[in-house]
């Protein structure tokens, strides 16, 4: 069964139709890259999946569980909304680290708050926190930020901040990790270090959706590529489509890079 199943997503901002019926599927452990020019709806699609925007039509299934249905009549509880939210992790273009917390606390904060809802929290608080902190240290190690674990975001470069943001998203162990143009705010050198981290995640069985303008990276890391144009999927397939585009539009888009 597909890990992620997106069907018929439609989204309007006022009268402008930004997404006009998006369908795709993604299997467990696969990496999907979404490419396309600015304004084609890539980011909006990602934001609809991660509940930062609400689509007017369509459904989203994660691992067979319906997490979004535009026709759902009854209002869902906050706890249920949170449960669905936690299927997804999201790494932002602008990092959005919490400025008043250190690297370590940025990674620990959400898991610790979440742990408060566990029935055994009061009895095992110490053990639970210790487990969260150990896990955070491992993740920070994994993104190569251990030497700066006690620094604040304002003391880090953009690339370092983004690596912390990745660790922060991983700390909640999401089924699907989404990246919204993770390197668009970085210079080429810093881009490299962030891409290296994302690449290393592929070796685990992380299912990922990456909105990106890095064509070489997309080609190398993806199992699947979606090319969006003007609110629709103009072409999708294996990374081969980047070598042999079938549509005129993708051809023109790729030529702009060379």
């Amino acid at each position: 069964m597909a890990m992620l199943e997106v069907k018929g997503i439609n989204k309007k901002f006022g009268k402008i139709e930004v997404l006009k019926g998006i369908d795709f599927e993604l299997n467990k452990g696969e990496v999907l890259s979404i490419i396309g020019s600015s304004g084609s709806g890539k980011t909006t699609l990602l934001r609809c999946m991660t509940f930062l925007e609400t689509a007017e039509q369509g459904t989203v299934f994660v691992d067979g569980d319906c997490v979004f249905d535009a026709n759902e009549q009854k209002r869902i509880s906050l706890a249920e909304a949170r449960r669905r939210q936690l299927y997804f992790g999201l790494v932002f273009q602008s990092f959005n680290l919490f400025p008043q917390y250190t690297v370590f606390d940025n990674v620990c904060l959400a898991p610790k708050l979440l742990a408060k809802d566990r029935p055994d929290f009061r009895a095992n608080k110490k053990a639970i926190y210790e487990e969260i902190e150990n896990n955070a240290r491992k993740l920070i190690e994994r993104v190569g930020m251990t030497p700066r674990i006690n620094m604040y975001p304002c003391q880090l470069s953009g690339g370092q901040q983004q690596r912390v943001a990745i660790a922060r998203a991983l700390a909640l162990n999401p089924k699907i990790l989404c990246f919204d143009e993770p390197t668009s705010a970085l210079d080429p050198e810093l881009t490299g270090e962030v891409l290296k981290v994302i690449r290393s995640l592929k070796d685990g069985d992380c299912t990922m959706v990456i909105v990106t303008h890095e064509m070489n990276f997309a080609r190398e890391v993806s199992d699947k590529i979606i090319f969006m144009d003007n609110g629709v999927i103009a072409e999708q397939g294996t990374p081969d489509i980047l070598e042999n585009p079938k549509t005129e539009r993708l051809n023109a888009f790729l030529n702009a890079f060379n």
Partner: protein
Amino acid sequence: MFGEVTLSLLKGFGVTCEVFALTLLFALPLGLIISFGSMSKFKPLKWLCKVFVWCIRGTPLMLQMIVVYYGPGLVGKWAQGIEDPNLIITWLASWTVFDRFVAVLVAFIINYACYFSEIYRGGIEAIPVGQREAGQVLGMKKSQLFFKVTLLQVIKRIVPPMSNEIITLVKDTSLARIIAVYEIIYAGERFIKAEGLIWPLFYTGAFYLIFCGVLTLLFGYIEKKLDYFRG
């Protein structure tokens, strides 16, 4: 003479400090509630708060104090004149003038809460939307997001405008003199009538200066404490 004046002024200064401290104690949280109201998505509440803030900021504090002090008594008098009163009218008829000190407090708290609410609103709205979104994707509840993520960033942003407003409050307490609350200006003024001395009134300035100086240092300290992060 100097000792006697100082002692007398200190007594007045005690009342000044009381007005100052109690106003802060109540106006700080009340302002936060009003700011939430004026940012509410529920339109009637939002407009009610906005109109209220407009009225309070649009009229002099001195006038508000007089209204709070004399208003209830006038309402009571009016209600007493109504024939065959119902339950509400009977209740209104029992209204009398506030205690002077309470009237001052009520007026100050409401007035300052409105100013604070606008400062809070500015601070909250200046937090980048990405912070809220990051919290949401990380599964935080709204209250957790506010207390664990937003609040400290808001505080950092509002310390400078708040210190301005709070230092203004120190000097605004002198308005309490209008309804004859015995604060420091009143205390100083008394020497003009009683002894023909003007210098005690000038001397009160020293108390204000010292008080504001201490506050300035305190706010400087807080600003420095919050200097460890940006954003």
